[in-house]
């Protein structure tokens, strides 16, 4: 995974709360067996509306999505993260994330930065006043900046460390392989086995 320290670019306001992953990417696009090629699928239903924010040329090259509370709730589909990333987003800002979505983001190098509701409101206002206003999300100082406005954000220390170092989760876990084997050797015999089929 690539190391991330700062994400900057154009901030896109998604002035909606409770954006579930079915909205981020509808189920019809989950039939694919690849991890890429989902950029057109992002917010597919909403993009049919010409007034939807992603159809505004001012935000065509957006990299930082600023959304309302409870972003990424619902279905566990990691496709939501792949679609955001494919489209060009590198960071999402929200006052509250769905737990699974936040986890998925961390695994895929999409920065999920949690800020206060007031901070989101302020960012929305600034972006409305000046569409295309530059934004940056700094993982080192844990701050988001939109224009002149700066707010701190929350991200768990472990995810932050992994993103800063660009570390692969599975390789990290396999460092503990001997502990896993020891645990397995002590596993009680009543615990389920799928094989052989009974």
């Amino acid at each position, binding site marked *: 995974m690539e190391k991330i320290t700062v994400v900057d670019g154009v901030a896109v306001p998604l002035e*909606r*709360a*409770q954006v*579930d992953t*079915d*909205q981020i990417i*509808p*189920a*019809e696009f*989950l*039939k*694919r*067996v*690849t*991890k890429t090629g989902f950029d057109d699928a992002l917010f597919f*239903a909403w993009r049919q509306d010409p007034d939807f924010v992603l159809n505004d040329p001012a935000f065509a090259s957006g990299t930082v999505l600023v959304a*309302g*509370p*409870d972003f990424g*709730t*619902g*279905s*566990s*589909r*990691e*496709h939501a*993260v792949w679609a955001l990333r494919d489209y060009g987003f590198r960071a999402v800002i929200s006052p*509250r994330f*769905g*737990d*699974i979505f936040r*986890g*998925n983001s961390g*695994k895929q190098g999409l920065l999920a930065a949690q800020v206060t*509701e007031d901070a989101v409101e302020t960012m929305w206002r600034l972006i409305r006043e000046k569409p295309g206003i530059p934004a940056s999300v700094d993982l080192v100082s844990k701050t988001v900046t939109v224009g002149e406005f700066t707010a701190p954000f929350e991200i*768990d*220390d*472990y995810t932050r460390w992994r993103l800063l170092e660009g570390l692969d*989760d*599975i390789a*990290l*876990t*396999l460092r*503990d*392989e001997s*502990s*896993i084997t020891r*645990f*397995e050797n002590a*596993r*009680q*015999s*009543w*615990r*389920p*086995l*799928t*094989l052989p*089929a*009974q």
Partner: protein
Amino acid sequence: MAKALGRTLAEKVWDDHVVVRGEDGAPDLLYIDLHLIHEVTSPQAFDGLRMAGRPVRRPDLTIATEDHNTPTLNITKQIADPVSRIQIETLRRNCEEFGVRLHPLGDVEQGIVHVVGPQLGLTMPGITVVCGDSHTSTHGAFGAMAFGIGTSEVEHVLATQTLPLTPFKTMAITVEGELRDGVTAKDIILAVIAKIGTGGGQGYVLEYRGSAIRALSMEGRMTICNMSIEAGARAGMVAPDQTTYDYLKGRPHAPKGADWDAAIAYWNTLPTDEDAVFDAEVFLDANELEPFVTWGTNPGQGVLLSDAIPAPESFDDPNEQASARRALEYMDLAAGTRMKDIRVDAVFMGSCTNSRIEDLRAFASVIKGKKKADGVRVMVVPGSARVRLEAEAEGIDKIVEEFGAEWRFAGCSMCLGMNPDQLAPGERCASTSNRNFEGRQGKGGRTHLVSPLVAAATAVRGTLSGPWDLEGLDGRMPETAVGAGAAAQVGNDLRTQGGTR
């Protein structure tokens, strides 16, 4: 999750699965007892393994089935949609290559992944269960710690049989009292979600407790745990008890002999200690509950069936007001409309929330001997091939067909707009599933979440209705369609049939 005082059910299960305790804010490394796989969230994970040259560490703790993307008609024919077909074929190839047991379309153990695990007896108390699907919380009904994961985590579990996880906080949801006739587990959970909101459970494991939960069957408990994710919680649990043990005993993969005794001895230690402290607590009075239905586009936007749609201005939070306004626009509904005046085009009886045998029995008990309302399309989709057989042995398929409804093969079906079963744009559906998001059941489709009893009564009348709205029922729940004794016997016979690899 370690605390000085007693521990909760969730903390006990967690503690017993810690392989490496995280230090300095690092997550714990948790061992996974059971990994369920389906076609939609696994192909990229298997690809990852292949690219890194890694095997599946424990194929014997892994099991796959096909559910999301499968048709529920003509299942012996080739899948018509080429993209769907490739996804199913990819799963079959991956399972073959990595030695994972698969129950494909047409197999007697095929079905919705969250119906299959429990019916095989693989889901049991005190274990950890994961699946690349957010409704994995269903399995918590057994006192297991079960939660949905993303595809990267699927790959992680395939490769290591563990997951690095930060401990959850714990929330007790206590439901005391006795449910009235016609009020079900589904109504409890819809009321819980309306109460704490779709984000209320974020970061928590919910433990459902209290006399109303204890009185529920395993099916009812699964319905409740299933929708924990709709309250934002990754997992929901119910402490194991005799109901749990009775359900499990004799199932193909349930422990046998001395293992069974050892398991029971351990499971009896799992319920939350009396001096344990939850991080949050919520109370609900079961006596006061009525059937609950949703009016909006998230599962928290619900009211009593006897109520009317609330005005967006009645919400304190401006974000919620805006969501309500958007929802009403999408749903083409006006504030103040009585729920019972809402006419539907379709009724969907199915999904991992409500497609087990008890759900089908409840649905059948209401529609028996009746005809569906004109112009309403009614689909009944068993959760698994085995549930379908069990229902057919009880004559439920006949009741469904005489009613004028469609009796389908097992799968996720119209719960999500992915397979051929979808709503047309603008169509309105009373659905026993779990998500009423925009477009969830098909682009432009409108969903009202309901219990099986409400779905059945709605199918009879064509407008959102409860069973006591039907003539001749005298305000009371009708008798069940068939004797429970006969049903239990059929269940046992079916359990002795083997599955395929």
